[in-house]
């Protein structure tokens, strides 16, 4: 799995960079669903269980998506990259696979908002990289798909004599939702897609990007706990250390994936419900 991780240790350094909370991508606005979980009555002592549940479900989907997104834009063994059209199509497929496995519009919306933050970084640090251009092309493909979906929905509604729905923009990606304040923009790639492309540009291996997703989610929850509950910061850090075997198991499970269809579909209905509630809650400390 050392593919892409150069002997100069670039991959390791980039992994540390991308996992650092100081990375300017808006991570400080996130609690990985912990705030609504605690509001719903979850005992802070159960945060380690919450972490394990996420690693087994929603985080697994994110990690697998990032791994596949990275794979489809990587050069093959002969050093030949995929054509940009092929890479864009494969990224769009991966995007659709992620959306199909992320049933909560609130979770999709959050992931896309975070994706915008990572995209800003990616565009500045790897400007002009063909993999970044493939991601832009994938966004155009998915935007066109959504427009076609809307047109077909509209046609069906008209055939049924239904009045124009007032939430026609509430597409599979949650765009147009009042909570996000967004309107009919072009489709925004979700965070794992952008992260996968970033991993390819930064020279991370599949295993490294999977570990990154697992670690980042765990650390986000642990750090958010400190803002929400009276927990000793060393205890919270201990949770992350204790989660290491689970993170590693997740990483080894998803790292070999190359096909969007193979991305696992583990739902977490409670996490999804809490996310939906939080998107409509005021007086939030964290965006999600």
């Amino acid at each position, binding site marked *: 799995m050392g593919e892409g991780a150069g002997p100069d240790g670039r991959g390791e350094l980039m992994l540390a960079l991308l996992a650092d909370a100081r990375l300017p*991508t808006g991570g400080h606005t996130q609690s990985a669903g912990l705030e609504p979980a605690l509001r719903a009555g979850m005992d802070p002592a159960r945060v380690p269980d919450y972490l394990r549940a996420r690693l087994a479900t929603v985080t697994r989907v994110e990690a697998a998506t990032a791994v596949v997104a990275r794979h489809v834009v990587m050069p093959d063994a002969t050093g030949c990259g995929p054509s940009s059209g092929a890479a864009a199509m494969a990224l769009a497929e991966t995007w659709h696979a992620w959306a199909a496995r992320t049933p909560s519009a609130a979770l999709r919306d959050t992931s896309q908002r975070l994706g915008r933050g990572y995209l800003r970084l990616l*565009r500045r640090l790897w400007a002009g990289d063909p993999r970044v251009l493939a991601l832009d092309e994938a966004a155009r493909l998915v935007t066109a798909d959504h427009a076609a979906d809307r047109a077909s929905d509209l046609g069906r509604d008209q055939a049924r004599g239904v009045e124009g729905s007032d939430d026609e923009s509430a597409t599979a990606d949650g765009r147009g939702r009042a909570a996000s*304040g967004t*309107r009919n*923009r072009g489709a925004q790639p979700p965070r794992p897609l952008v992260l996968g492309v970033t991993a390819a540009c930064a020279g991370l291996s599949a295993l490294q990007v999977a570990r990154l997703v697992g670690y980042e989610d765990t650390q986000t929850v642990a750090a958010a706990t400190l803002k929400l509950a009276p927990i000793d910061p060393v205890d919270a850090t201990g949770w992350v250390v204790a989660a290491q075997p689970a993170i590693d198991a997740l990483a080894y499970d998803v790292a070999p994936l190359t096909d969007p269809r193979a991305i696992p579909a583990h739902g977490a209905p409670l996490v999804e419900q809490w996310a939906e509630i939080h998107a409509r809650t005021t007086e939030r400390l*964290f*965006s999600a």
Partner: protein
Amino acid sequence: MPDTQHDHAPTRSLRLGVAGPVGTGKSSLIALLCRELSGTLQLGVITNDIYTDEDARFLRSAGVLDPERIRAVETGACPHTAIRDDVTANLLAVEDLEEDFAPLDVVLVESGGDNLTATFSPALVDAQIFVLDVAGGGDVARKGGPGISRADLLVVNKTDLAPYVGVDVPQMVADATAARDGGPVLALSRLDRESIDALTAWLHGLLAEHRAGSHVPQDPGPMAPHFHADEDGDGVLHSHDDGDHDHAHGDQDHGDHDHGAAHDHAEDHVDTAPVPAVRA
């Protein structure tokens, strides 16, 4: 292809930050600006209340701006981070507002109340107002700090309360003006028409410069001590908070460090739109 949707919003507003300690009247100042200007300018507001969306609700309830044009950004209890070292969430919100309500003239970004060291990054705003109030004590202006010293405008708010809190407003303004090397200071009261007019005149002046392309965002943030190499491989380490303003960056750099655009600070504190202190 670059992101035409978000890196280059259809119209680029003047992005104006409002920072200052908790309770000095940042939200009221924004409500005042909306009340005075929403008839003539297209405005948007982003607010970063430290915990609640209290500020957004306050502004909406003030009825001075379409509620859709006021958006709250949660900062995860990191108000300083959200305006300074990771502006991502605020920047996305500003860009969305600019896109949704194009063309906007001004987007006001209200920081969650923070301490005296919090200032906006020039990556987020084009200019910033730092707000103090007389109730915080007449000596606050003398304490200095990047916002007080180098924000584009320092507002000393609630001057109508001065008699009740024993503050000498002219003295406080004089102290602030000294701390700012003569930079603009505005003594403001919502009950003092003349001061309100001075505030809107300042903003109109700034907007005109922004549109003319002559406004260059300045970073009031703390300048880290940094190193200038000389030809012998030696050099000098200095900082900018000690009056050591006698060298020109960009002319004598020897490639040892990259100052970048954010470093092009005004050495001579040019006042783009001087506002006379209005006596209460």
